[in-house]
């Protein structure tokens, strides 16, 4: 689904340094790394928000021409404060040219699944961080993207909301969609992701399933936190 080759981006100093990444369709991939490792920069380049200095990004999908391939959910998504969730989704549907009837049905379904349907008529300005995050997620899923890219999607969510989002993502993946996410909560990556990539100083230092990462780190019984700290310990900051 997503293939990245030799990706580079520099802001005076290298932020992403010859990064290779390959993610198959129908998996949840967690990109982990210390602060400043280049996770968000990588995802922003994949979404077309930043131009890479070198390398290529390839997004493959059978229906990509008729149905745009990807959606982006930033760590601090912007919602128009004066719009209601329903109006926000209506705007997003317009951006993606989703037919009105289909958009209406998907909006109702997403808002219901995320527990926002009772708040569909309220302006977003009064929403908590979790409600805003869920509204933005509904917007990202409205055009049913084949590839969903999310930066810290669970930050600020309480346990119940976090469960709702995780269930929604799992359901998407079961229908063949792909999810790429970053997170600092390693338990989330450990339980949710099919594969995990660990980057440091813009380079991939390890990649695989949790079991494979344990093997690479030489620690069969370790937690992901142990593995992560071990693999990133000797990388330059």
């Amino acid at each position, binding site marked *: 689904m997503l293939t990245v080759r030799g990706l580079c981006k520099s*802001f005076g100093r290298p932020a992403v340094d010859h990064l290779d990444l390959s993610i198959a369709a129908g998996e949840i991939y967690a990109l982990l790394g210390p602060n400043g490792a280049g996770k968000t920069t990588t995802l922003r380049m994949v*979404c*077309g*928000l930043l*131009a890479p200095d070198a390398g290529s990004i*390839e997004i493959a999908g059978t229906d990509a*021409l008729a149905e*745009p391939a990807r959606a982006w959910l930033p760590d601090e998504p*912007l919602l128009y404060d*004066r719009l209601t969730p329903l109006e926000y989704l209506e705007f997003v549907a317009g951006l993606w040219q989703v037919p009105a009837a289909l958009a209406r049905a998907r909006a109702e379904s997403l808002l219901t699944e995320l527990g926002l349907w009772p708040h569909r008529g309220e302006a977003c300005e009064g929403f908590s961080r979790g409600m805003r995050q869920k509204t933005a997620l509904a917007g990202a899923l409205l055009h049913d993207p084949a590839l969903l890219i999310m930066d810290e999607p669970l930050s600020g969510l309480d346990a119940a909301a976090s469960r709702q989002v995780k269930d929604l993502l799992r359901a998407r993946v079961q229908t063949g969609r792909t999810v790429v996410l970053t997170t600092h909560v390693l338990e989330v990556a450990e339980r949710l992701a099919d594969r995990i990539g660990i980057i440091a100083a813009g380079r991939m230092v390890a990649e695989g399933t949790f079991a494979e990462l344990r093997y690479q780190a030489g620690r069969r019984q370790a937690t992901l936190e142990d593995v992560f700290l071990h693999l990133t310990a000797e990388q330059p900051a």
Partner: protein
Amino acid sequence: MRLIRSAGAPAAMGTQVAKLPGLLGPGSAFWLLRHDLRLAGRDLRAAGGRKRRVVGIVLGTAVVLLHLIGFVAAPALGRLHDAHRSDALLVGSFALAGAFTLFLSKAISEATDALFQRGDLDLLLSSPLPMRRVLTTRLVAIAVIAGFLPLLLVIPLVNGMALRGQFAWAGAYPVLLSLTLVAAATGSAITFGLLAFVGPRWTRVAARALATLFGAISFFSTQAHLVLPAWIRAKVWQAMAPMSGVVPAGPQWWPARAVLGDPLPMVVVAGVAVLAVMSVSAALGQAYGTGVMSNLAVPRGARAAGVERRFAGGVFTALLRKEWHLLLRHPGLGAQVFYQFVFLVPGAVALMNLGDRGWHSPAGVVFLTAMMTGRITKILAAGPFEGDQAAALAVTSPVRPVLVLRAKVLVTLVVLAVVGGLPVAAIGLKMTPALPAVCVASVAAAATRLWLAVSRPKQLRRAGLQGRLQASTDGLLGVIVDIGWGIFGAVLTIVL
């Protein structure tokens, strides 16, 4: 289908859209504009009942008055249009040039803000919407903001004339609207040019300075008869004399001819405006999206210095160093101070020139200098006192509050002495008797502004609407204080 993106080629947004949106349908430029208008409308509605009523009454009264002025002035302007077409063209062209520089000044300022604000660009850029369409709506928004106040003043005049059946100047509608669009396109192109040549870090400063300069040119053009020395004024009149009575030809007069109702120039002016917006959108659309994202991604670098020096010197040095760094790294500080100079120094020069006409020119100069000192102190103090993002850090630490305050005041005063010392020294050289008055009034104005900054910190009141109302009330109080000390300085000059 495979979407392949390579190095140096930003995302080709819009390549995946199945069908093009209609002219007004979802995804079109008009649709985006409607969305922006909806948001602006809701912002206005949410701006609080009482304040909205007051603003509505003030604006409504001003509009009615301006309509009345237009109604009364209609016969005279009509005669100018019919009998003195050459003079009307000359006056109209100068007025339009002045208006355009004013629009351009505001447009550069707005375009700079747009270049450094992420806003909803994450959402728009990651959608299949072409960025040129987003930039088109941004340009229209910049044009509306740039032209709003000037048009609010001019259009009622034209309406007033139309009410008397005098439609000769009705061309002002399309011409002024076209000029705002051209200014928006030009201002954005200039800002992008700056970004390409001087980089994101300096673009903000350079663009603000340029915007101030254009604003000053516009302001100067209305005050030229006061600011320019007599010999230059004589030369200008001499150069313009042959133009009187001769209907000028050439494309440079077409905007004025369009205002006077010539159809061909009107079509050309409107066409140029549309072309300017479309070309800038097409040429810079993609650069706009990636430019904003790159600007936001550029880390704010600081010069490396020895670690030992960083932690030496004790509490007060640390406080002083922090205030000093924050003040000097404030992105708009230089431009804001420059702005005060640009608008107040010419006024002072004009008053100096009036000295031989029996005015109390030293009093006027002292008035302006004291006012400027107050304004600049407010700008300098805004960083340390209002913009302190780590105020809680100092409050919750064992450091004595008086030390924190002393560091803020000291840094503000040092910069103020450097900036304000120049005009005071100039007055001392040119008008020695006014020196004590200007020193007393300026020091008093600066001290009052500092006291206001200390006693009414805005750090905790900024969040809600109530905070914003409080901030604007404080701003008004500050202006009244500056004017008060200016008047005091003027009176003191006369008394001494």
